[in-house]
């Protein structure tokens, strides 16, 4: 079986600076993978390349063996690191939107999760608080039966209770053959749910290992290792 995501010599330049340089990785199926690195290390660039929002300057990025396109977008569920929903829409309208465009979206699952949080489906997105909006976005993304979930900073800037809710939602909703790629710089918060971690530094790969390997070999947590690798 082809890897769900594969980078071959992937390079992205903005002007004359390299955001990613000659990246080679392959992600396995059925894993939760942490994409870790400080700000500006190329995490979001990699994610946007995987979603076809950016075009590589060199090399290739393949999702299930094909370059990002209509077919890959059907199987990738993506949570951007910013508010990406039209503010003029209502919660039920945006759900209808997802339901229209994604065959693998479960309206039932999404409604269930919104109900559990007692979010009014008739509420306008512009009237929701920042935290609630982030939860709605996560619910939309996790209500798809995707092969690859790409979550860009899902726990950045939320309180500990919201963070627990988010991790719980991810763990409950992804299916066992799917891969979840989570980018973050808050490692200690999600370390326990990760199988595997990828460290990026200045657009290059510094580490690609399983959490158990790191703990057995280095006798320290991924978080501690991260602090060591990226010491200022």
């Amino acid at each position, binding site marked *: 079986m082809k890897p769900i995501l594969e980078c071959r010599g992937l390079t992205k330049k903005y002007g004359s600076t390299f955001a990613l340089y000659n990246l080679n990785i392959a992600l396995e199926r*059925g*894993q*939760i993978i942490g994409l870790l690195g400080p700000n500006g290390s190329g995490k979001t660039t990699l994610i946007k390349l995987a979603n076809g929002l950016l075009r590589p300057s060199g090399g290739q990025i393949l999702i299930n063996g094909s370059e990002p396109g209509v077919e890959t977008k059907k199987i990738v569920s993506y949570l951007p690191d910013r508010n990406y929903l039209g503010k003029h829409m209502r919660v039920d309208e945006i759900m209808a939107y997802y339901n229209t465009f994604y065959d693998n979206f479960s309206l039932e699952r999404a409604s269930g999760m919104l109900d559990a949080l007692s979010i009014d489906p008739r509420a306008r997105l512009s009237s929701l608080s920042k935290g609630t909006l982030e939860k709605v976005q996560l619910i939309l993304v996790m209500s798809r039966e995707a092969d690859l979930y790409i979550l860009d900073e899902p726990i950045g800037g939320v309180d500990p209770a919201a963070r*627990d809710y988010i*991790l*719980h939602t991810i*763990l*409950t909703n992804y299916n*066992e053959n799917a891969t979840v790629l989570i980018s973050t710089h808050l490692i200690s918060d999600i*370390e*326990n*749910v*990760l*199988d595997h971690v990828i460290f990026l530094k200045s657009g290059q790969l510094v580490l690609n290992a399983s*959490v*158990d390997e790191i*703990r*057995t070999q280095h*006798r*320290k*947590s991924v*978080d*501690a290792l991260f602090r060591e690798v990226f010491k200022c």
Partner: protein
Amino acid sequence: MPWELDNDRPIYLQLMERIQHDIISGVYKPGDKIPSVRDLALDAAVNPNTMQKALSELERNGLVYSQRTSGRFITDDEELLKNMKMQLATEHIRQFFEQMHQLGFSDDETLQMIQETLRREKQ
């Protein structure tokens, strides 16, 4: 409530220990069905694959056995459970003596102190 886990050891080892502890302390009785991997993982707030690995290891040790359709059960082999209990107890004692060594007490001194402590508590 997420389980409390240390930072410096593989997570699956800690999950194994926690489940072993639950078996000994009676949270699970011999022959009991244990929750599914996913439920356990959610409860512990860990990755389901890691929980799976922990349970597979416990299966290898014989503490847990799986029936193809109905799930995983705690062994009802009393002998095995007793052995595990003994093994854990031995481990605790060994660690205790090691710590006492670090404090500078010999085994004999330690033993004496234990007896004295027990005597005092009885009074």
